[in-house]
């Protein structure tokens, strides 16, 4: 098949691949193979994929610039929206399956548990970003769009804090995400890859 046709199919293939974790969870849920604490497994894995896609999204611009790879550019939105999709799955698993819509418990958790305050805050920040992700909104907001979407970094920080603060003692995994995020923030701050 021609390179150009492949290139057109690639975004679809990427999104298709990105859905595999969610589909796998659904299949495991139906088969009853989510382990002894299925709600915990679902919440944890959807949370991890949210963070991974968010970091992938934040990595697009630094990679695009340093590798001089303009073809990466559209994937910033792809990964951002995938992060939002997994964040919705993560949030709704927590709200529906863990707390069974007990809104007083939700409020108490958000207000009293720092790790949930961070997670909830991060999720809230992703909402306007998802809503304004289209080219139409880019045009409508002009320069303010870029300022708004810098909130993605804040969402990343809140997501990593959420993970760090909920772990009992083994900080290894959250620290991996934290260091990737720190690296991306550093790259941003140092304006790496930009032609002078």
């Amino acid at each position, binding site marked *: *098949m*021609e390179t*150009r*046709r492949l290139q057109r199919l690639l975004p679809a293939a990427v999104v*298709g*691949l990105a859905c*595999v*974790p969610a*589909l*796998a969870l659904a*299949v*495991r849920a139906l*088969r*009853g*193979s*989510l*382990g*002894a*604490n299925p*709600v*915990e497994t679902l919440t944890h894995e959807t949370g991890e994929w949210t963070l991974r896609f968010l970091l992938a999204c934040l990595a697009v611009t630094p990679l695009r610039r340093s590798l001089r790879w303009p073809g990466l550019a559209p994937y910033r939105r792809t990964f951002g929206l995938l992060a939002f999709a997994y964040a919705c799955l993560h949030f709704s698993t927590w709200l529906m*399956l*863990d*707390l*069974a819509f007990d809104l007083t*418990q939700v409020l*108490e*958790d958000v207000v*009293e*548990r*720092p*790790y949930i305050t961070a997670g909830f805050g991060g999720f809230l920040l992703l909402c306007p970003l998802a809503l304004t992700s289209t080219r139409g909104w880019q045009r409508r907001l002009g320069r303010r769009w870029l300022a708004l979407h810098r909130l993605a970094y804040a969402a990343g920080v809140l997501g990593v804090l959420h993970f760090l*603060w*909920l772990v*009992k*003692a*083994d900080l*290894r995994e959250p620290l991996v995400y934290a260091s990737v995020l720190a690296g991306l923030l550093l790259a941003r701050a140092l304006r790496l890859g930009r032609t002078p």
Partner: protein
Amino acid sequence: MRKWEDIPASEITDLALFLRRREFLRSAAAGAAGLLASACGSADPAVAAAPARGEPITGVRPGPAAFGTDEPPNRFADAASYNNFYEFGTDKSDPAKYAHSLRTKPWSVAIEGEVAKPGVVPLETLLAPHPLEERVYRLRCVEAWSMVVPWIGFPLGDLLARFEPTSKAKYVAFETLHDPEQMPGQRRRVLDWPYREALRMDEAMHPLTILAVGMYGHVLPNQNGAPLRLVVPWKYGFKSIKSIVRIRLRETQPPTSWNASAPREYGFLSNVNPEVDHPRWSQKKERRLGEFRRRPTLPFNGYAEHVAGLYAGIDLRKHF
């Protein structure tokens, strides 16, 4: 619709490829299905390889009716595949995967400190005088999940009495095996190894407190703390120390691992108490594994009638 003369030659599909397009689609679909299948097959010991039961234990009599519960025990597969035993890794599924490296025979326990008859006792000798009972207890983890487990064991107090504690014995300290070769999780300092726990003397002598050697009618699987573990059902699960090699009676309060690791989060008493939250999460509710909705946590994990008296006059918010 573009006119044929507008289509550049570079966009014309090679004939060979065109004829094989169905093959290409088939292999792409197979690849995606394979990826999905392997993603679905991922680590679930409870289904993939059901944890093995130990040897059956015979001659077990029922425990005191007052300590029983009519709540159904959790499935053995869950109790033996969802474990916090950081000596074998910090994921819940790690102990079931890696605890096979623990050698439970031969095993001895050192009984020392404020006792008239200290000694290092081989496990069979230690257990011999004690008839085994089945105790169906609730186990409540500090992480706010719980299970009902039918343990097989005997009262700790009966064992301690044999070694004649002196009048100075106010606390009982326990230690887990420390051997990073058998327990790979100990190669990282997630906690300060060896794992240590302790009880007040009156808590240790209480008839609810048992040393367990089995569960579900069989010898303890390694991941559940073989060959000898403590079960103190009215306290958070981390107090029920596993794979015990040392029991020392002391005059002063001994250090305990989780308290040493995070003193603001884990106290010495660690009684199950819905009124006292963990700094980072609530203790008001818990998830009983196998149930859909969370259930309210009970004071002293539902054993208040038996143990609340031990703490009369103590501010349990301060002494959590």
